[in-house]
């Protein structure tokens, strides 16, 4: 086993062990733990292990390791700590709670993601504590029509059984299921109708997660339907069916598309890295002299590329490394290099001449390279 796998394995085991301890402690030594839900618990423990394993492997890749470290460093950098904290709240609200950047990619697309995300968050917040015995309900002594919720065994709010609040609490999972199904339908519609989605999508990567979420939600609603309107018809069978879909979903969490739930928060670290880079020393392209990103970014990239085995070092000490050239100059150099191959060749034959004439030179002005002002697209590209 490689050093990386061993480290990831230990992280996975430790995280799973902590979760198991929380299950035992949170349910007061399993006093409130529902033994029927043991399969769910083991599925969660497996998922926790595998997610921690994969996350740890991912964090050990050179670029991820570097940005993980830098993300924290720049967040806590003294000059930026206060504004960073303010922006942290704005970003968590805008990007995570509201999914603004996904809405900008497409309204329906944003809506689909937003519905699925919030439906799942609500459902997880309810089911996980319930099945681990972290939350349980007891009737209030002396008031048998009242119920009290206990969190980690501590009493919290009490509410009348037959009330609007009671209805909302008992059916919160049903509402979550409806929201998820609506989102899944929108996502399915896009996957079936959009040509760009159709060209790249794969069953395991793109359809399976939607199918799993749909199956979990529908079988969950069937349970409510069975006991509410059908006198518990096929209740046991639906319970098992629901358990199978949920457990499959849990086991799938670490592998497929669902893993983005755990990767995506890295976006926050990167945004702070960019913010700080904008305020610090710039890297100037060593060909056109335009500032194109932060010096920190270029130096970090050079380091990462070396760790990955790339060697873009240049012989000329003034240039030093290819990373010091802006993307636009790179494109220009490629074209000029290809043009140079064709110098003096016409119709596939080299032009033979006794004395080469001087090449035409521009008399228009500035001798150095000038692209003119940056276009809008490049200006946005060239942020740190």
């Amino acid at each position, binding site marked *: 086993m490689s050093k990386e796998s061993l480290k990831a394995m230990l992280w996975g085991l430790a995280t799973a062990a902590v979760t198991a301890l929380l299950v035992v402690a949170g349910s007061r030594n399993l006093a409130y733990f529902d033994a029927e839900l043991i399969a769910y618990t083991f599925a969660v423990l497996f998922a926790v292990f595998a997610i921690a394993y994969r996350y740890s492997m991912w964090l050990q890749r050179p670029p*991820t390791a570097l940005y993980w470290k830098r993300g924290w460093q720049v967040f806590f950098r003294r000059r930026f700590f206060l504004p960073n904290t303010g922006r942290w709240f704005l970003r968590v609200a805008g990007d995570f709670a509201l999914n603004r*950047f996904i809405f900008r990619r497409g309204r329906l697309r944003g809506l689909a993601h937003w519905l699925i995300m919030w439906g799942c968050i609500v459902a997880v917040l309810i089911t996980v504590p319930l099945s681990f015995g972290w939350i349980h309900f007891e009737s209030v002594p002396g008031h048998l029509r009242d119920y009290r919720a206990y969190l980690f065994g501590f009493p919290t709010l009490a509410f009348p059984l037959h009330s609007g609040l009671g209805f909302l609490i008992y059916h919160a999972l049903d509402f979550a299921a409806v929201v998820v199904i609506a989102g899944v339908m929108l996502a399915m519609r896009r996957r079936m109708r959009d040509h760009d989605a159709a060209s790249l999508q794969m069953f395991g990567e793109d359809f399976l997660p939607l199918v799993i979420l749909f199956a979990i939600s529908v079988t969950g609603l069937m349970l409510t339907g069975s006991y509410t309107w059908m006198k518990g018809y096929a209740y046991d069978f639906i319970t098992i069916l629901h358990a199978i879909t949920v457990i499959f979903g849990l086991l799938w969490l670490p592998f497929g598309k669902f893993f983005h739930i755990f990767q995506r928060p890295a976006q926050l670290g990167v945004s702070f890295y960019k913010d700080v880079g904008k305020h610090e020393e710039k890297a100037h392209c060593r060909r056109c002299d335009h500032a194109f990103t932060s010096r920190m970014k270029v130096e970090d990239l050079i380091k990462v590329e070396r760790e990955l085995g790339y060697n873009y070092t240049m012989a000329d000490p003034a240039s030093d490394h290819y990373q010091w050239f802006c*993307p636009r100059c790179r494109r220009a150099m490629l074209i000029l290099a290809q*043009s140079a191959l064709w110098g003096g060749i016409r119709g596939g034959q080299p032009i033979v001449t006794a004395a080469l004439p001087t090449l035409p030179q521009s008399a228009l002005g500035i001798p150095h390279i000038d692209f003119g002002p940056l276009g809008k697209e490049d200006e946005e590209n060239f942020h740190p």
Partner: protein
Amino acid sequence: MIHLEYLDRPHSVQTAPVVCMHCDSPTCAEVCPADAIKRTADGVVQAARKPRCIACNNCVLACPFGVPKMATDLELMMKCDMCYDRTSVGKKPMCATVCPSQALFYGTEDEIERLRPNSVPVNRFQFGDQTITTQVRVMAPKTPAVEYVDVTSSLNAQAIGQDIFFNILEEPFTGGK
């Protein structure tokens, strides 16, 4: 997603398109901290996976050809993916389909050999000490033979055109007689 570049606007009208070269070992994908850039089995380096891309700009700055673009408001990198929706069903990429001068060409080696008998496709590029091989090729003269394109050697080259007007002004035009 192609770039159309003026090389040195005040001095030259030369423009050139730059598409993704689809590297065999794509630097953009390797420096991606989010594992968002994947290479298909047929060698196409795809644009960033939308759920994963965290808009860090690493690919934009690390690509030796300067190809990826960052759509900042979408928090998403975009680049040429060889029009995978078209090429995966046997059509040509849009850019090559509509290019009137065939500066961009998509086809087999036999076809290009027939169309450009004096050129050979080259897919090795040198950037300082780093060699990169690609799926997309650029055309180089057949003689003298060229093994690779040394990109960084053009660091100080200027877009002043080639010797197209060579001797035209000095020698009277005879119309081939």
